[in-house]
């Protein structure tokens, strides 16, 4: 069966993407500004000013000091999404005045998130059926936390979309070599979105190499061996340099003419020549490895070119970038009544939190899909499993590995565990895809058992699909826009999660629930302490007309007239400090979702 989608499925995918974009846009106004988002807003504005300078005074814009000044802010993350946020804000808000400032920044995030259901449909329909593709696509954004993250001008949902795009193109390119360069471009864009993408080669390399090896003839295999030897030689050379120079010296002494540069050039040149040989001598083997070659050649170029901050100091700034993420600070996180503050973190954390935050009607097909995929993949190695579940083959392995990789990576006890589910979002589209297959099988079984005609079978599938998606949909509607507070039925919903002692919320955006009360109940000139809301977010609430402009930020409860405290287990002291400063333990109002305190507002007692 061809991996290319049919015309109808392309249209369905387009429709799904457009619908997703529209729904996200229509529901964004209620979503508060998470702590990081306002930083990205500010960065995006700053970068868009640089692009304007580049247009008007290119020589000045391209100088090292100007680039450093423009891009130094928030250089923890690459530029692709922030550039898109900035351009969109400049065009749709500042120039055309079509949208409020926040929507101007967020539109590109909606567009990138909209790729996910489109790609899920394309992939699912090609693999199994249109029904599977549609279910996978629809199921993704009825998960409350996923729907929430898709609204943000951040990088977690975009990198999940990019990861899916790269994996999909990689899979397609195995059949159609014309898609290989696009795989490389997509990989570059993924690198330019968030650092998760640096793990993509780890995931895809075995598939490209083994796929190529399997179809290669003797000549092709000799070339592949040489390619492997070249890569190993490079790693050996790098290791030698590390031993001789040490890590710091290796970075500091990296110049255009240096042993380090020689090593990289030799690697790239060697692999390019060998790829050309493979293309010439064994076309079938080349087709299978071409996406990897494209990722290796095009990806880093896209990443480097898109980020001016790297242009004058590529090595030391890249080293800083990797260092920052390799040694990221651990934020406190509540898990079963324990505040996790430092590694080692519980091994089961990611699996448990995934299970407790997903609506149970989606958790079931995802889990079944994952188990089936595991059994079928292992069926390639264990005949008994193959007899029971069938053999998986390359695609099954590809889906399985991608579904598990981010989950397992974050499960490592030394990796930071804050941030709810957002750090393993790249796994979730693949779980949705596997759930799509389970739904397809279930629908098929139902039609077969009831001996339904084709038309009735379609109707039954729609009914079953609607039934399965409905709990997730209602949960999402219920909790929106407070997605970081969402928990599924297995946890007992939001109140059940509170009793279990799970993280109540994070990222401070739930403060939107009390801003209307504050607007109505604060005097002009009042000082307001929005706990956990950073200064940039405070400004963004005001400039988006979500908070009166005549109230002023307070640095803490001592100099505040009103205080809105975010409920976090690790921040209890700050609420108690409000009691102390305001002389009362009685709140004036609060955001209580399903009875759980999320944001509690206090007003200073009259003197």
């Amino acid at each position, binding site marked *: 069966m061809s991996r290319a989608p049919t015309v109808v499925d392309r249209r369905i995918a387009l429709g799904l993407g457009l619908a997703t974009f529209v729904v996200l846009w229509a529901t964004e106004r209620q979503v508060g500004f998470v702590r990081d988002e306002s930083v990205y807003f500010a960065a995006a504005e700053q970068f868009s000013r640089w692009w304007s300078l580049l247009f008007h005074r290119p020589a000045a814009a391209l100088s090292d000091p100007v680039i450093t000044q423009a891009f130094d802010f928030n250089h923890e993350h690459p530029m692709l999404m922030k550039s898109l946020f900035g351009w969109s804000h400049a065009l749709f808000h500042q120039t055309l005045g079509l949208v409020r400032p926040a929507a101007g920044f967020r539109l590109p995030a909606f567009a990138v998130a909209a790729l996910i259901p489109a790609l899920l449909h394309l992939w699912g329909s090609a693999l199994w059926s249109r029904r599977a593709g549609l279910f996978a696509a629809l199921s993704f954004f009825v998960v409350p936390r996923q729907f929430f993250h898709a609204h943000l001008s951040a990088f977690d949902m975009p990198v999940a979309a990019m990861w899916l795009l790269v994996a999909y193109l990689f899979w397609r390119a195995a059949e159609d070599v014309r898609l290989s360069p696009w795989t490389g471009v997509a990989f570059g864009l993924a690198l330019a979105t968030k650092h998760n993408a640096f793990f993509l080669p780890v995931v895809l390399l075995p598939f490209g190499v083994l796929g190529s090896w399997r179809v290669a003839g003797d000549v092709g295999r000799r070339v592949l061996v040489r390619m492997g030897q070249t890569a190993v030689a490079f790693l050996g050379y790098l290791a030698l340099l590390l031993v001789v120079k040490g890590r710091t010296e290796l970075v500091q002494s990296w110049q255009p003419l240096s042993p380090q540069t020689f090593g990289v050039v030799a690697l790239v040149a060697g692999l390019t020549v060998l790829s050309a040989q493979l293309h010439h001598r064994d076309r079938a083997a080349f087709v299978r490895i071409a996406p990897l070659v494209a990722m290796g050649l095009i990806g880093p170029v896209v990443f480097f070119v898109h980020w001016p901050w790297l242009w004058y100091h590529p090595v030391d700034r890249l080293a800083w970038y990797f260092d920052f993420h390799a040694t990221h600070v651990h934020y406190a996180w509540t898990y079963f009544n324990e505040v996790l503050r430092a590694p080692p973190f519980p091994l089961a954390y990611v699996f448990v939190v995934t299970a407790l935050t997903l609506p149970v*009607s989606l958790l079931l097909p995802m889990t079944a899909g994952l188990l089936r995929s595991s059994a079928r993949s292992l069926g390639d190695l264990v005949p008994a499993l193959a007899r029971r579940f069938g053999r998986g083959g390359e695609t099954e392995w590809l889906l399985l590995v991608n579904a598990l990789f981010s989950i397992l990576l974050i499960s490592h006890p030394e990796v930071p565990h804050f941030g709810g589910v957002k750090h393993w979002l790249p796994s979730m589209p693949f779980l949705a895809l596997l759930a799509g297959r389970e739904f397809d099988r279930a629908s098929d079984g139902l039609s077969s*058992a009831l001996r339904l005609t084709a038309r009735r079978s379609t109707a039954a599938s729609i009914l079953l699909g609607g039934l399965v998606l409905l709990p997730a949909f209602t949960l999402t509607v219920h909790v929106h826009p407070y997605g970081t507070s969402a928990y599924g039925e297995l946890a007992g919903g939001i109140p059940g999660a509170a009793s279990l002692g799970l993280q109540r919320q994070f990222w401070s955006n739930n403060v939107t629930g009390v801003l209307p009360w504050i607007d109505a109940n604060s005097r002009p000139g009042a000082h307001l302490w929005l706990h956990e809301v950073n200064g940039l977010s405070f400004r963004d609430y005001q400039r988006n007309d979500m908070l009166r402009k005549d109230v002023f930020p307070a640095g803490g409860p001592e100099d505040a007239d009103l205080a809105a405290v975010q409920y976090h287990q690790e921040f209890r002291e700050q609420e108690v400090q409000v009691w102390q400063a305001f002389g009362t333990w009685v709140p004036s109002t*609060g955001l209580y979702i399903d009875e*759980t305190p999320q944001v509690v507002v206090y007003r200073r007692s009259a003197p």
Partner: protein
Amino acid sequence: MNETAHRLRTAAPALALGIVALLGLGFQLQLPRAFPSDADYRAVAGALATARAPGDVVLLHPWWTERARLFVPADLPVVGYLGDTRDDLLSHPRIWVLANERLPRTPDADFRRNFLPDRTPAGPAQQFGPLTLTPYRNGRARRVVLSAIDVLDRLEVSVEGSGGAPAQPCRRNGARVQCPFDASVEVAWHEVLYQPVRCLFLVPPGGGRTVTLRLPEAPAADALLLEAGITWEHAWLPGRADVQLQLESPAGNLHLRIPGAHEGLVHGETPAVAAGPWTLRITTANPQDRQVCIRLRALGGPP
């Protein structure tokens, strides 16, 4: 028969999906029944206002149901923090438990294990929507003869050097007692392992010096109860110094140690004590992140 079994087996995945979806929907539909209305809370507040007595306290079950704070009479203490079922609430002879057992995963086992011992119902339970209000006689209550937070203005506070240097007196600055070497003492609310505690809040001096709090005249009591803990998130920080507390009273010496990474209150109790002075000395080798919340109370018998 075989045919029916085969058809059932074929339809089983769809049935499973459908049943789980219905269960999910059912859960969501019934969940709002567990949420009290404002009117329910107001009725609770009315009942409390009518029946309350001095020394009463309200305990929330589950502990996090703090929306009740919006409604409970402002001068009636409300206790709701992670771990509160273990709180002796010893200054409160009667505890009003405001429970919502319709909420999912309500920690009833914890309540039975930690709260109920020594507590007996002191009246009938009243129902207000999903809320149940039950008064309990607190068998762990003690009469508080004196609490150090009430006598800050009578405390003589000084800082002593480690090498026998003469004590340097502290001076009062508003509600705070300000000492040399950046030490201070005041009465304030602080959190110790999620528990809000109104306590003597002590910032210890540097250089291994000792803060001394002396109460020249204190009444006789059945016991002195000393509790102390590091505030907020500083407690768990690794590599921080111990804090030593030494209480001298007519009952003898009581020594407490807050270990470096200890979270929560440590406590110790003296035997019966005659009237006389109390002297509490607090020392730490390094004051970094060692702000201490101290409760020192003279206790009598059951109220």
